[in-house]
Each structure stands twice: as C-alpha cells, then as structure tokens.
C-alpha cells in the first residue's frame, strides 16, 4: 500500500480531483473565484452557441485525417519491412519528427502554407503558379493545412508501430505463402494486414486521441484557432474560453464533453483488446 502512495498522491491530487471539480463546475457559472449553481442548462447553452457547432464540426473533420495518417505509414512500412539495404537509415529519418515540438513544426508549417510561402514557390516551380493557394487565410483550407501538418508529424510514430507489428509476424508464414505462389500483394492482403489488426486498431485510437487532445501547440502557433473559428477544435475552445474570455464555467462544460469523447474512444480500445483474448 505504501508503495502506491507516490503514484496515488500525484494522480489523485492533480488528475482525479480536478476532473471531479470540472464535472461539478460544468453545471455552474464560474470565473475562478465565485461559483453559482445553474444546472444542466449550461450544457444546452453551450450547444446553442453557433460557434460551438463549428467547433464540433472541426473535430469531426479532424477524424477524416486519421485514415490518411494510418494508410501512408502502413504502405511505407511494407516497403521498408522487406529489409532492403539501408532500411534502418530510412526508419531513423522518418521517425525524426517525433522528437520535435509541434511549436517548431508549426512555425515551419506557417512558412510552408503562408502567402508567398514555400508551397506557392513549389507550385510556381512546376508551372502551377496560377493556383496560388493561400491556405491559412480561409477557414476550411486553414483546417486542411493543420491536418496535413498533423499527418506529416504522425507519420514516423505510426510507421514505427507498424514495423514493430510486422516484426512479430513469423517469417515462415511468408515463406509458405511464397511456395504456394502468392504474389506480394496477396501476401500483404491475406497475411500481413489481418495479423496487424491489433496494431492498426492501436494506431487508430492513439492517432484519434492525439488529434483531439494534443494539437493545441500546432493550432496555437499556426492559426490561433482562426481565421474566425476555422481551426478552433474542442481543446482549443476550452483554452480560449478559460484563459482568453475568463469563463471557467464554460471551459469546464466543454472540458466534460472532451473527457467523455476521449473516455469513449479509450474504452472502445479496451473492448477491442479484450474481444481478442
């Protein structure tokens, strides 16, 4: 019992106590000092705000980036896993962005997508200068720019997980398939992907939770949630309500919704793991 004390003290006082407070304060108006009990109507107020609909929509759109963030590294993992000479080098290079803060990545991404930025120069270089995309200055395209940057950043992490998964597959299975005359595409479809199912589910959940709870730095540096509410996701909305507007009550209400979303996704993961045992 004594051995669990440090862990419990940290987690209890700094995670569990505040999540309880968040739930309580989600039913109140709260500016950090005075609290007034309102009841469940705080939730209907939140959902009636037009900008909150857009916030939820932004989160829904983020989900669309997840298949891309999985399929890209998955297909590259197939290329590297054939153990071609130099695969270790490629693995190290592709994994490198994992070490870099989204603050730094965000600053460079701004230069990439900005007006007169790298993307426009690249397009001009290949004769597509007339496209002239100015992605950060429109609501929808700004969100797409954030999503592209997010996919770029997750590439290495997901690649590593798939490579780890592939290394657990018995080489004999591949040899047997080859003897049976199966082409490499058939092998991928019939052997590798089914055996990787657990790893694909895992990256799906991790990427989804990352998209919902860890894009703050990227959004803060790239767009500050704008233009308008174009890139304000739920987590950024909580920050803005709490620390720009000073409405801690509303921040708590939105905080409960984010918590429910994350918990639902995590429980799904537990469920999936359990059905396989």
């Amino acid at each position, binding site marked *: 019992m004594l051995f669990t004390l440090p862990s419990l003290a940290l987690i209890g006082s700094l995670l569990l106590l505040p999540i309880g407070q968040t739930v309580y304060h989600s039913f109140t108006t709260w500016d950090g000092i005075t609290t007034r009990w309102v009841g469940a109507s705080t939730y209907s107020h939140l959902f009636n705000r037009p900008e909150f609909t857009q916030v939820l929509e932004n989160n829904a759109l983020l989900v669309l980036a997840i298949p891309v963030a999985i399929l890209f590294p998955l297909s590259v993992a197939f290329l590297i896993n054939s153990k071609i000479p130099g695969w270790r080098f490629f693995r190290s290079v592709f994994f490198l962005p994992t070490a870099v803060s989204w603050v730094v990545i965000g600053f460079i991404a701004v230069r990439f997508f900005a007006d007169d930025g790298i993307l426009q120069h690249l397009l001009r270089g290949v004769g597509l200068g007339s496209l002239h995309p100015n992605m950060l200055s429109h609501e929808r395209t700004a969100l797409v720019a954030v999503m592209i940057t997010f996919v770029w950043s997750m590439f290495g992490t997901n690649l590593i997980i798939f490579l780890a998964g592939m290394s657990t597959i018995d080489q004999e299975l591949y040899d047997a398939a080859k003897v049976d005359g199966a082409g490499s595409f058939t092998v991928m479809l019939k052997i590798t992907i089914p055996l990787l199912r657990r790893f694909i589910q895992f990256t799906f959940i991790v990427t989804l939770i990352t998209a919902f709870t860890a894009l703050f730095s990227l959004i803060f540096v790239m767009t500050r949630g704008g233009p308008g509410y174009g890139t304000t996701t739920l987590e950024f909305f909580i920050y803005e309500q709490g620390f720009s507007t000073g409405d801690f009550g509303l921040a708590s209400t939105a905080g409960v919704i984010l*918590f429910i979303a994350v918990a639902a996704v995590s429980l799904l993961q537990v469920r999936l793991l359990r059905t396989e045992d």
Partner: protein
Amino acid sequence: MSTSATAERLRQMSWRHVGSRVATYLVLALITMVMLYPFYYMSFNGFRSLDQYYAGHGFSLTSWRNLFKTLPVARQLLNSTIITLSAIALILVASTTAGYAFAVLRYRFSRLVFLVVIAAMMVPIQSIIAPEFVNLANIGFINHRYGAILVYAALGAPFATFLMTVYFRRIPEDVIEAALIDGVGYGGVFLKIMLPLALPAMFAIAVLQFIQVWDDLLVGLLFLQSPDVRPITVGLATIPSQHLLDVPQLMAGSVISALPAIVVYLIFQRSLISGLTMGISK
C-alpha cells in the same frame, strides 16, 4: 528451346526485380526529402540575417544575436532542463514503486487501485485545465517551476505506472521467492532485484517523457507566466509578436529549442521505440 525460354523468363523477372527496387528507393528518397526539408529549412535560415533571408543567400550570426536579445535563451534552456529532469525523476519514483506494488505485492484492492490509475490515462489536460489552475493558484504554485513539474509528473505517471506494472509482471516469481527466502524482505527485493532488472523500461519511460515534457506548450504557457521561469519551447511560442515576421530569428529559436530533444532522440532511439511499442506487445 524450353531452357532458353526459362532463361528469358528469368531475365525478365530479374529486370522486374531491379525495377521494383529502383521504384522503392525513389519513393523512399522522396519521403526522405519531405521529412528532412523542415530541418534543412530551419538550419539554413537560422544562420541568415533578415536581408539574407529575403535574398536567399549568404550566412551570418545576426539572427542568433537578435534571438538572444529577444529571449533569455540560456535561462530558458536551463528551465527546460530542470523541469524536464525533475518531472522524469518524479515519474520514475511513482511508476516503479506503484508498478512493483501492483505486479508483485498485490495487496487487498490493489487490482481496483490499478484500474483507477489506468483510468487516469483518459483524463486530457485540457479537460481539467481550469480547476488545475485555480487549485495551484490557491497554494501559490503558479509561476514557479515546481508547479509545472508536478503537473507534468501527474500527466506522465499513469502510462508509466502501466508500463512498469506490465514489465514487473514478466519477471519470474521464483526470482522473487528465492530472494525472500534469503531474507532480504520486500523493500530489499524492490531495490536490489527489481530496479536493476527494470533499467531498460525506466530508460524507455525517461526518453519518452523527456521528449514529451521538453516539447510541450500548454502547461508551461498557463502555469509559468513570466519569461524567466518559462521553458524554451514556451518562450519560443510566445515570442513577442513584433518578431513573428522575423523568420530567420524564429528559425534560430526553433533550432536551439529542438536540438536537445533531437540529440536525446538520436542517442536513445532504441529506448524510445521500445517505450512506444511496449504497451501494445503486452
């Protein structure tokens, strides 16, 4: 006749083989460029003055000098180091002790407590940010490094505890029983047997947390408000807005803030990979 046909087929196959190899390397080379371009971009432009940046050639240290005038760089690097290492130390203490208790001691209700710790993994920092801020402000922990250290430690502890529990469970029971018969006691078993065996897992947790804490923005942004207590990543993200158009200065700042985490990554890549994948492979 048939042998020459076979030879012909073999030749075609090996050409196809070479062809697919070349295609593979072309794809990998392209991705390498896409992945490395930001590093190239920030390293080159960080060593240009604003004029040289617009001209696209020439190198100087002007932007580095400007950066050191804009931000207390040395001070913020020190803050980052202190905060990151202290958080890692707390996480290691909490996760090894709790992991040992859950995996080996297994007291009454320990299974329930374990589930509570696991459940804490689902709490996103944004959800608790308002009460966390008020609580820490009430005890005077805002704008002091130890406030941020505690928050980072709490955020890292659940996953680390989970990993340590899984790791300790793999250690065969007879090793522990033999030591108990020798009379070292449960505390001795922990210090003399379990901790040395757990070094690789502790290392993986440390590297994972180093990158997580060093690279974070939100906690430092809210709980540390004056530039002289802020870590470098937060300092860079909140650089006064008149410098935001000074791209070479931003890139110099990006280089200096990213470099320590990149170095840790390059040295301890293997530990990081095992930390990321330990959770899935059971």
